[in-house]
């Protein structure tokens, strides 16, 4: 059991590289790249696993079978077939589009989604960059994914794409506020913005989902909206605006939007786990098992939302954020402040 941690695996890889290269400094440099590769690997694996999972979860909720042709009874090779299909599709460039901005949009969208994986604590001591303002930097980086959507919407030279881009901005900016304020409760209790400190604080006491239930619910709702998933997928609303900002993309460019979407789905699940469900801590099993069990459970919860709730209207959705979630988050923050003050003066 002791050897089944990610840290032990990293040590083993390091010793192999050290044996080959025979130089400590260069090995450290190479290990940084191994870390980067591991983060990218997690994202790409997630994209493959989650597309399959989403189809299956959706199918079972609608009493269907889901993919069952490619790769045996359970359709296990369906993601591979999807990938081959997307790669072999024609790359259609719409007439009159703003070529450079249009081509940059899907690539730039993927950058912030991938970048925040460097801040997640996956296991004991397994975090690429343990920054002292981790939570804040994380929110700052993830806020950068708004502009690429708007770029795609504007550059496609299409009404639907443009409306989708505008909706993205309205939606993501509105839901960022309650999300930030719900996380502040967690930060106030911990007294630190470092991600590993937040995980450690939950190991010492209780999971923050018990101390901050309102913040947990606000965070889940606004995270669903931030990743543009149903019931808040007004951005890519098929019945109203075709596919929003991705309406004019095809093939691999379109796939990049979905790669970013699944990277975001996994990262909000990881964030929920880290902030509210105790991160990688758990009894008996090694940390990394607990981590992925909690994360995959949260992924399932987000998929469950998607196939349970009907889509909201854009104006309802925005007023819900500003008139319900944000005041609730502020009140929660105030009570957390009072609670922390009373607790500290009692100690």
């Amino acid at each position, binding site marked *: 059991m002791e050897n089944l941690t990610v840290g032990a695996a990293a040590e083993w890889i390091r010793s192999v590289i050290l044996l080959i290269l025979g130089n400590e400094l260069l090995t450290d440099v190479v290990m940084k790249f191994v870390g980067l590769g591991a983060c990218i690997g997690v994202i790409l694996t997630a994209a493959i696993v989650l597309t399959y999972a989403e189809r299956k979860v959706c199918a079972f909720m609608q009493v269907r079978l889901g993919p069952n042709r490619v790769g045996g009874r359970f359709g296990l090779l369906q993601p591979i077939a999807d990938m081959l299909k997307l790669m072999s599709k024609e790359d259609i460039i719409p007439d009159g589009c703003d070529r450079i901005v249009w081509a940059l949009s899907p690539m730039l969208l993927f950058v912030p989604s991938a970048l925040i994986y460097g801040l997640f604590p996956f296991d004991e001591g397994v975090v690429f960059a343990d920054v002292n303002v981790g939570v804040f930097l994380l929110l*700052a980086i993830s806020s950068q994914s708004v502009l690429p959507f708007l770029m795609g919407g504007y550059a496609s030279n299409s009404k639907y794409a443009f409306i989708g881009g505008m909706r993205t901005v309205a939606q993501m900016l509105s839901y960022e506020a309650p999300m930030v304020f719900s996380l502040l409760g967690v930060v106030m209790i911990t007294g630190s913005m470092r991600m590993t400190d937040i995980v450690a604080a939950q190991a010492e006491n209780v999971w923050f989902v018990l101390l901050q239930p309102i913040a947990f619910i606000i965070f889940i709702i606004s995270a669903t909206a931030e990743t543009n998933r149903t019931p808040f997928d007004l951005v890519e609303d098929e019945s109203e605006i075709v596919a929003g900002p991705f309406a004019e993309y095809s093939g691999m460019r379109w796939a990049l939007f979905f790669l970013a979407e699944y990277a975001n789905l996994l990262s909000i699940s990881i964030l929920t786990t880290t902030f509210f469900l105790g991160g990688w801590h758990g009894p008996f099993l090694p940390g990394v098992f607990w981590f992925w069990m909690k994360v995959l459970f949260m992924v399932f919860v987000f998929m469950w939302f998607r196939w349970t709730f009907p889509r909201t209207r854009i104006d309802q959705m925005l007023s819900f954020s500003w008139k319900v979630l944000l005041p609730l988050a502020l009140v929660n923050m105030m009570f957390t402040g009072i609670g922390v003050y009373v607790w500290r003066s009692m100690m």
Partner: protein
Amino acid sequence: MNELLKLVHGVVNWGMDTAESMNAGVLIDASVFYALMWVSVLAALGVVLCRNVVHSALLLTASFIGVGCLYIYMDSPFIGAVQFLVYGGAVAILIVMALMLTRRDDMAHSNLSRSLFCQAGAAVISGAFFLCISVASLMTQFREMSAELGDSVTGLADMMLTKYILPFEVAAVLLLIAMIGALVIAKGAHES
């Protein structure tokens, strides 16, 4: 196998020694800094030179983000994050939205510089501004803040809510005024 490993070790050690003798660490540090700097500067230049005003706004964002990366590179992730959140996030989106929503004619030639007189005026004003900034930054005695702030954000929060409470509150009041002003303007529009 052992021979091969020895050969690789030899090559690696020779490479590392050469790199050390050429001060590779300093060189890499400087080249990352200059790469980020040139990204910011060239993007800022593009803001002025682009014909399409939306491209200008997007390049302005690139410049903001380049500066944010510089802050992070210089070991102040907090300032970098603020730069990302406020400039790369809020300000950039505000500018791009305003441009996209207000301009109706052809976007391809929307950033035309007017007359030579205007250009000369802009050059003089920005030159004077640049001069002021350079003089101010050269005259200022920069202090080492890290010891005072410590490793954590707690130090920063203490400073903001004790010693620098007045500027902090003034900034808050300014933002409140801007928000109320925006509300008043938006309320004035006739909704049909």
